[in-house]
């Protein structure tokens, strides 16, 4: 449900203007990967606050548990082991919705109001309007939305829009024991990240940097990465995410083009009929057939 205290900036499958008299500050969550110890407190806090309980999984030899995001797992710690300069590095990334400024899910969604972007940047799914088509899954460059096997609705991290609406930080940020998850105005988060990056560079991570990919207009969940030159090291974080050209084609030029073509065909037909008249059977042929019928009758007699 739309939250009264959060203004809506964009709404899926809606072609008219959103309300915009108020100016709302953009918020962001900053995940400092270099400060994360992989304790999964955030994962537990997410389940707790949102009251969702994924099925208890199995240990398959890695720390990731469950194995993937699902309708009840909106955030997931992904663990990667890489060797850098002869040293083992254990990279731990908290995966989940990035809350893109230009959200592919929202662009793809055919159902009005199933996906909302608030003026503060949060992208939220409103399941009561969701029809379960899964278009959002194709729109997302980060492979985040999941369609529930039980109710066929789409689910993902809401950035705790309900908490943010009343001035609280997201549950994950609240729970993190090392301060690796920060939440606040996006501007402040960028400044904070700059300090962290200076620190990391001093410690020898020459390529440390902020992950705020411009291909999707920037995100409202950002990472501080030690290896910002190679985001894909972190369990396949896209190096250069953008809405797939296929989705842009489908949701962009294809629609007006098809509408105009179909409209023109329909109107063209109508005006053709009105201006040229129907293609009648000629009177001549009808008379000929009548004559033929009369002759046949005669013959029969």
């Amino acid at each position, binding site marked *: 449900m739309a939250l009264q205290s959060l203004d809506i900036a964009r709404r899926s*499958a*809606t*072609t008219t203007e959103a309300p915009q008299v108020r100016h709302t500050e953009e918020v962001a969550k900053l995940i400092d990967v270099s400060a994360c110890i992989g304790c999964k407190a955030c994962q537990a806090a997410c389940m707790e606050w949102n009251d969702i309980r994924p099925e208890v999984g199995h240990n398959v030899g890695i720390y990731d548990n469950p194995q993937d995001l699902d309708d009840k797992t909106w955030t997931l710690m992904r663990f990667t082991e890489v060797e850098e300069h002869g040293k083992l590095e254990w990279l731990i990334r908290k995966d989940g919705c990035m809350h893109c400024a230009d959200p592919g899910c929202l662009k793809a969604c*055919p*159902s*009005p109001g199933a996906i909302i972007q608030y003026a503060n940047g949060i992208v939220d799914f409103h399941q009561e*309007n969701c*029809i*379960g*088509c*899964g*278009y959002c*899954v*194709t729109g997302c460059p980060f*492979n985040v939305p999941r*369609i529930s096997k039980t109710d*066929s609705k789409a689910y993902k991290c809401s950035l705790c829009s309900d908490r943010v609406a009343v001035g609280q930080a997201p549950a994950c940020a609240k729970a993190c024991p090392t301060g690796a998850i920060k939440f606040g105005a996006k501007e402040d988060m960028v400044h904070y990240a700059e300090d962290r990056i200076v620190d990391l560079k001093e410690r020898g991570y020459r390529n440390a940097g902020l992950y705020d990919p411009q291909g999707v207009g920037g995100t409202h969940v950002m990472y501080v990465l030690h290896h910002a030159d190679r985001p894909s090291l972190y369990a396949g974080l896209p190096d250069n995410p953008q809405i*797939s050209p*296929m*989705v842009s*084609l*489908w949701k962009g030029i*294809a*629609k007006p083009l*098809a*509408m105009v*073509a*179909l409209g023109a*065909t*329909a109107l063209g*037909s109508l005006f*053709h*009929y009105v201006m*040229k*008249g*129907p*293609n*009648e*059977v*000629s009177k001549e*042929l*009808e008379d*000929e*057939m009548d004559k*033929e*019928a009369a002759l*046949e009758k005669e013959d029969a007699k």
Partner: protein
Amino acid sequence: MIRNPRDLQRYTASERANHWVLGICFILLGLSGLAFFHPAFFPLVNLFGGGTWARILHPWIGVIMALFFLVMFIRFARLNLMGPVDWDWLSKVGKMVDGDDHDMPEQGKYNGGQKLLFWGLALSMLLLAASGVVMWRAWFSFPVEVVRVAMVVHAATGAFMIGLIFVHVYAAIWTRGTIRAMLYGTVTRAWAKQHHRGWYRQVTGKN
């Protein structure tokens, strides 16, 4: 029902039933598909009991349509093979659309336009069924890159097929005396001689 014993039988009852199953499926698919395609049409989902129902029903109706289309394809494919006379007909169609059909080359059961439309519809149906299955999340999960391509193919082909059917329906309305062929199966001799002289000769043995 025979209106006039001299009328010519163009379609059997089972061919007509097959055609109307396709017609009904197509209208339902077109309406629900357009609802997903453009926000302006989203309210059409209410014809199906809401967005979720439209999403659930559309692919099933699609499967029914694809099966009946296959039957119709088998029935009519041979009659729709294109020949030189069909291309000749097509090259002159502009004049006919302009209102003068006197110089049109003689046509068999189907004219070049109808044949081309037949193949256009068959190709559309094939592409729609294949891409539709790829997009059907309730039952299948294809790699996302494949689904993305399928979305574009399905949407574009859907629009194309709707356009073809507009033309198909309009041609039937414009050419008076045609719709009855699909309603009670017969056409008048005059109609046959004017529009499909080759077929007229074949079924009547006359000139």
